[in-house]
């Protein structure tokens, strides 16, 4: 049966795939066309060239890219961006620290600790984050001032007005952070229970204390499971933080809202905000990739390639395809 060893290989035809690709291409080109399209503004401009008068309609980008460019790096927008980044970082820090704490409490053998943790998650996950932010912003209505001293005695160490500490920014951070802790605790818990029980048994039998077992053996391995959903949470927080508009903090979205409420360039300014959100999300995704790679050590025999390595591999793969013509598989066996 191994007659002609140089027989031509006929690849399988993927008709459905080609049709799908053609449809996708059509939609992509429509999108590019509309993004780059120009529309008449209704105004006309006239010039005198060589004594004769020439007039034409003034056209403009449909998406007002010139306005987008004009506002993209104004100090107001950049300041809003910084506020958004600060809110995201602080709220996530609170969320991660409290989340891990609540997850560990939840897995405690002490019933009071575990049910406290459960109730926390129940409450903060069960009410809208918008309401929680508003609540922290209106804390002064409930407690106009705080006094730290010895209860039932007139000894006071510290006294402060609520509004002086719970500024809108702090209210936003606390509201977002405590809400995030409820979600992060479930993520951390899933990581902790994903680590095989044998790992903590082995650590225990070496004489490690419970704290050491958790810190040195269980948590580092839980990280691998925890990072992808945590990255998701960070990216989600970046955009959820725009809810601080409820307590009138001027973040990225707040900044563009302020601008378009005076110049009415609503869509271009929303594009400005969206582009910034996209840029930050892209940077965060890249960071997440490398973090995942770092914590995957030991778990995978070969770590996944970095994007640069992947591009290199793809290029060399394509090149080698061009270099050597496809051979019949039996060809190699024959030699």
């Amino acid at each position, binding site marked *: 049966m191994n007659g002609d060893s140089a027989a031509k290989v006929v690849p399988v035809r993927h008709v459905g795939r080609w049709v799908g690709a053609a449809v996708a291409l059509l939609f992509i080109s429509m999108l590019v066309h509309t993004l780059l399209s120009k529309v008449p503004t209704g105004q006309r401009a006239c010039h005198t060239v060589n004594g004769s008068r020439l007039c034409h309609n003034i056209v403009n980008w449909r998406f007002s890219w010139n306005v987008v460019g004009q506002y993209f790096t104004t100090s107001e927008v950049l300041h809003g961006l910084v506020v958004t980044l600060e809110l995201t970082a602080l709220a996530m820090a609170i969320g991660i620290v409290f989340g891990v704490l609540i997850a560990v409490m939840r897995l405690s053998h002490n019933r009071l600790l575990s049910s406290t943790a459960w109730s926390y998650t129940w409450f903060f996950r069960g009410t809208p984050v918008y309401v929680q932010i508003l609540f922290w912003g209106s804390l002064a209505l409930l407690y106009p001032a705080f006094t730290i001293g010895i209860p039932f005695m007139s000894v006071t160490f510290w006294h402060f007005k609520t509004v002086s500490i719970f500024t809108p920014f702090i209210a936003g951070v606390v509201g977002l952070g405590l809400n995030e802790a409820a979600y992060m605790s479930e993520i951390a818990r899933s990581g902790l229970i994903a680590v*095989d029980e*044998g*790992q903590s*048994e*082995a*650590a*225990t*039998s*070496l*004489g*490690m*204390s*419970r704290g*050491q077992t958790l810190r*040195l*053996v269980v948590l*580092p*391995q839980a990280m*691998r499971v925890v990072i992808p959903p945590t990255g998701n949470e960070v990216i989600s927080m970046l955009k959820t933080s725009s809810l601080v508009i409820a307590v009138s903090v001027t973040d990225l979205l707040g900044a563009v809202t302020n601008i378009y409420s005076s110049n009415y360039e609503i869509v271009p300014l929303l594009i400005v905000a969206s582009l910034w959100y996209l840029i930050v999300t892209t940077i965060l995704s890249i960071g997440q990739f490398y973090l995942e790679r770092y*914590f995957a*050590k*030991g*778990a*995978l*025999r070969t770590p996944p390639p970095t994007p640069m390595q992947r591009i290199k591999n793809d290029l060399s793969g394509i090149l080698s395809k061009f270099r050597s013509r496809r051979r019949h598989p039996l060809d190699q066996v024959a030699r």
Partner: protein
Amino acid sequence: MTTPMVEARGVRKSYAGVEVLKGVDLTVVRGEVTCLIGPSGSGKSTLLRCINHLEKHDAGELRVDGQLIGYEARDGKLYERNDKQICSERSQIGMVFQRFNLFQHLTVLENITIGQIKVKGVNAEAANARARELLARVGLDNKEKNYPSQLSGGQQQRVAIARALAMEPKLMLFDEPTSALDPELVGEVLDVMKDLAHSGMTMIVVTHEMNFAREVANTVYFLDGGVIEESGDPKVILLTPKSERLKSFLSKVL
């Protein structure tokens, strides 16, 4: 006469109402190898885990090196030991698991040094030196930078033995150390264990390897249904078992 390394008198243990150990008596002499054999569910592993205090026994007396496990007898009372004391007791008992349980996120070398550094407070240099010495002893001196997932089962189990030995234990417990291995890898692990036995380590081995028990063990205990059914010199009881249950067990595994 010296005190035995392990002494159990009437040890009982139940899980959720099911009694797994129903009064076990056992004596392990220093420097000897003791094998625990028996059908699955007979309580062999549970006994081993009680000796290491991974499980708390419910009743009876369990002594390691003359010390009660988990309790301290003073003034006619038993004082429960605190976590710190229990940890320090455990650090003197090495344990090797059926499924190796190497720390997946650490290299082979780090697996062996982490206990010395974090529990015994040995400095990193001395810990590394000891780890390399032990790796040479188990025949894996070229694997120190590898992660456990890059090793075969037999290699992982040998690393696990080195990890336990790094703590300089006075007693080594093996919980079915070759049961999770491919048949051709069993030999390399048993060889390391034989070596260890010849060096005078006190060992308790839960095993289904009857040849190992016959060759290496000084004493074999046959557990069935949570009690010791028969015990003695392996060359005697494995060849001429007295009880019907041991006879039928041996006819199945040999």
